[in-house]
């Protein structure tokens, strides 16, 4: 027989005004199993808690029910008090008679009756509570960072500086991400490479960072503190241990006309190449699709075609037969920083919900370019050496039209969100243009100017006032060729007049989208993502860098469009979360998780199919001789988050969620 104590709180007047607390306490005292039932003005106060502690000892209570506010408010308080008096904290529960009763009803008799019902639910439920103890999970204090853009770099450096080992996985042959492509950066116009390159070098030289460039995450197993990650190191066709980055191979590669991805197609590279001079690691990669030797092999030509790079390599580092290799790393936390891509606005689209802008002639009119292409033109290390020149004929454009919100905020194109950074970089582009072409005219079509941020609005004002950019509010309906120029037809919605401009060049500020392939990575990690593929944070305000999978964090533009300051701030936040997690050898967590009854589990694994976390594992039951009797489900304590979907699904009722077992819920329902 239980020995339950019931404690009804008046919460000053908050509950007492509408609920007759004494009457509730008295009624509860008459329930079977309740040996002590009282009411008090403020249960959460020190004397209130003392009352509970004293009662636990005096009446030898084995269950405590506090009828008061929401458990979200004070469950921890009362469980702590119970524990202090020697009662297992999970034998203490709350009934919510404030938010769910006294505050929402006026009639005292009705509210009192309802309060009795609510407390009775919990009294009946608690008869089936089991004492539970917190779970301790060992933590492997190394971190994995996926993506080597500025966000990933910052996170890796912070964690490594904090004393923990980091593995940084980057899918391209160099780290740096988009920031390495930028010319100068808003809002201060400092040179992007100049502030980024030292950081990249620091990563490469850090004793606690293991950089795996040209690699991708293949699979992820495990749970917070104990992930096991399989990483594919893609074949560079170069023996990394031998290469010293002298560059002879790239110099001698005969295929020099491959459009460079780094230059956004505005420059060329060789088949064996380093994407940009400051690349880290400074080791080339062989693009097999464009290499004469591999093309020859594919055609079945017996004689080796080309192979010049290997001939000139003094260190014999080139290995045409290199295969992808795999390594497995054990880590305790994972940071995802895979960044973004720009919306491709050509006609064909990768996904059905997206629609291109055929009317803008992107891809067919060579002088219609996107923002990143403009960055390359403006960059001192770019294909034009920092001169703004038209891709079509290399002439200096005297009139450039910039179009904002291309794709962004456009439901018809499948993206209703604001890309956030474009207002700023367009203003930057008009300034850079003005600095380089003094008699040039920049015209910007915008929907709204969104320049929230320190020094941001001032920056846009400078573009307008000092660089004399002409801002027109409105949309452009079409871009067509008009002889040597591009006819821009649109409307100025402030004056209501249609506008027609003949521009020498048009720059489209296209939307930021998540990286391709992010959804398959997210699925490997069990991290949820939104309609567009941006990764979801656990809580938009209070847990902005955590994901719903414990131990996995997000930083930078993979979570939403972000500029560099935001990405860096987020990255440092993830690092502090990870270092916090790593501050203990073991992780303590609440034991409200699922548990399998080995006797009755039949091994149907319905639970495995519905578990959102992959927490269900297979357990082999063997006899003494080691013969297999059956394979049943087992819950991984580190992975289970306690949603209980498995329990509602289990046909043999063999899996139970502690704290919310069938017995407990039915007991409450029976008290109706």
């Amino acid at each position, binding site marked *: 027989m239980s020995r339950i104590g019931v404690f009804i709180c008046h919460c000053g007047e908050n509950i007492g005004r509408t609920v007759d607390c004494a009457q509730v306490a008295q009624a509860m005292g008459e329930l079977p199993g309740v040996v002590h039932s009282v009411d008090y003005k403020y249960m959460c106060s020190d004397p209130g808690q003392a009352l509970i502690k004293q009662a636990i000892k005096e009446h030898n209570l084995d269950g405590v029910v506090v009828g008061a506010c*929401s*458990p*979200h408010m004070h469950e921890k308080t009362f469980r702590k008090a119970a524990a202090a008096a020697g009662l297992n904290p999970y034998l203490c529960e709350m009934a*919510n008679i*404030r*938010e*769910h*009763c006294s*505050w*929402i*009803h*006026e*009639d005292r008799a*009705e*509210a009192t*009756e*309802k309060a009795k*019902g*609510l407390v009775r*639910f919990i009294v009946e439920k608690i008869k089936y509570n089991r004492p539970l103890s917190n779970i301790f999970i060992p933590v492997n204090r190394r971190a994995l960072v996926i993506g080597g853009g500025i966000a990933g770099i910052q996170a890796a450096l912070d964690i490594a500086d904090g004393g923990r080992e980091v593995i940084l996985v980057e899918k391209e042959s160099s780290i740096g991400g988009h920031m390495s492509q930028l010319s100068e950066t808003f809002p201060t116009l400092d040179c992007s490479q100049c502030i980024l390159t030292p950081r990249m070098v620091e990563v490469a030289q850090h004793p606690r960072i293991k950089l795996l460039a040209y690699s991708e995450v293949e699979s992820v197993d495990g749970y917070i503190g104990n992930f096991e990650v399989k990483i594919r190191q893609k074949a560079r066709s170069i023996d990394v241990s031998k290469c010293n980055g002298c560059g002879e191979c790239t110099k001698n590669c005969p295929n020099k006309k491959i459009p460079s991805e780094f230059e956004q197609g505005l420059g060329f590279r060789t088949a064996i190449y380093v994407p940009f001079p400051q690349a880290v690691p400074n080791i080339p990669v062989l693009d097999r699709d464009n290499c004469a030797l591999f093309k020859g092999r594919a055609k079945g030509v017996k004689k080796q075609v080309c192979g010049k790079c290997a001939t000139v390599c003094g260190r014999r580092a080139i290995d045409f037969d290199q295969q992808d290799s795999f390594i497995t790393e054990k880590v305790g936390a994972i940071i995802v920083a895979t960044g973004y891509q720009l919306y491709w606005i050509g006609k064909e689209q990768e996904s059905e919900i997206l629609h291109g802008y055929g009317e803008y002639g992107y891809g067919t009119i060579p002088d219609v370019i996107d923002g990143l292409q403009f960055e390359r033109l403006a960059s001192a290390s770019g294909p034009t050496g920092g001169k703004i020149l038209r891709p079509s004929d290399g002439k200096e454009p005297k009139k450039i039209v910039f179009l904002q919100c291309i794709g962004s905020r456009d439901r018809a194109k499948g993206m209703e969100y604001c890309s956030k950074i474009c207002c700023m970089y367009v203003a930057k582009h008009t300034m850079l243009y003005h600095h380089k072409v003094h008699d040039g005219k920049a015209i910007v079509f915008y929907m709204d100017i969104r320049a929230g941020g320190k020094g941001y609005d001032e920056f846009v004002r400078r573009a307008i006032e000092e660089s004399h950019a002409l801002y027109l509010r409105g949309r452009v309906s079409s871009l067509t060729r008009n002889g040597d120029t591009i006819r821009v037809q649109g409307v100025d919605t402030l004056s209501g007049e249609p506008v027609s401009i003949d521009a020498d060049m048009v720059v489209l500020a296209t939307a930021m989208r998540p990286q391709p392939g992010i959804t398959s990575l997210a699925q490997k990690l*069990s991290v*949820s993502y*939104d309609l567009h593929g941006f990764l979801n944070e656990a809580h938009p305000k209070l847990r902005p860098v955590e994901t*719903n999978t414990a131990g996995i964090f997000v930083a930078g533009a993979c979570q939403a469009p972000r500029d560099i300051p935001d990405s860096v701030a987020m990255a440092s936040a993830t690092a502090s979360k990870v270092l916090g997690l790593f501050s203990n050898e073991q992780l303590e967590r609440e034991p*409200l998780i699922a548990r399998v009854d080995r006797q009755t589990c039949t091994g149907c694994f319905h639970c495995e199919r*519905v578990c*959102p*976390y992959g927490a269900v594992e297979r357990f082999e039951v063997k006899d003494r001789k080691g013969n297999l009797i059956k394979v049943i489900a087992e819950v991984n304590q580190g992975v289970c*988050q*306690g*949603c*209980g*979907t498995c*329990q*509602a*699904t289990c046909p043999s009722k063999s899996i139970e*969620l502690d*704290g*919310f077992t*069938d017995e407990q*819920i*039915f007991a*409450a*329902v*029976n008290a*109706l």
Partner: protein
Amino acid sequence: MSVPAKEKASSFEPNIVAFVCNWCTYTGADLAGTSRLNMAPNVRIIRLPCTGRIDTLFILKAFERGADGVIVSGCHPADCHYTAGNYHARRRFAVFRELMEFMGVDPQRITFSWVSASEGGKWAEVVNSTTEKVRELGPFVSYPRVAHAQVK
């Protein structure tokens, strides 16, 4: 939106149980409380971690024990605290509804809704409208009597 006293006296007061998830609806109901939104006193909440945890047997049991109506409410699709529990719940209840109909229980006695942690007002609406609806339907007749009626 309290029920006018005069009407109340004449009509029957239904007993309604709400099975709600801890993260969205329970918190939404807390918010209704903090916002002092007056509502019908007929609904009593049983807290579960997730709608995915709700076994349809809970609902059957509730009717057996004298409930006249049941509310099931959790996070909006795509907002589940546990990523996907509410989707499992949704599928389960789609089938369950048919079972209720088959058994002769008016499916109108069960309200399924999504109420987020910020929708205190919506919670009050769900409580009031369900109470109103169940009041109109009258007391729930026990399962044996339902079965009996079907046989005839």
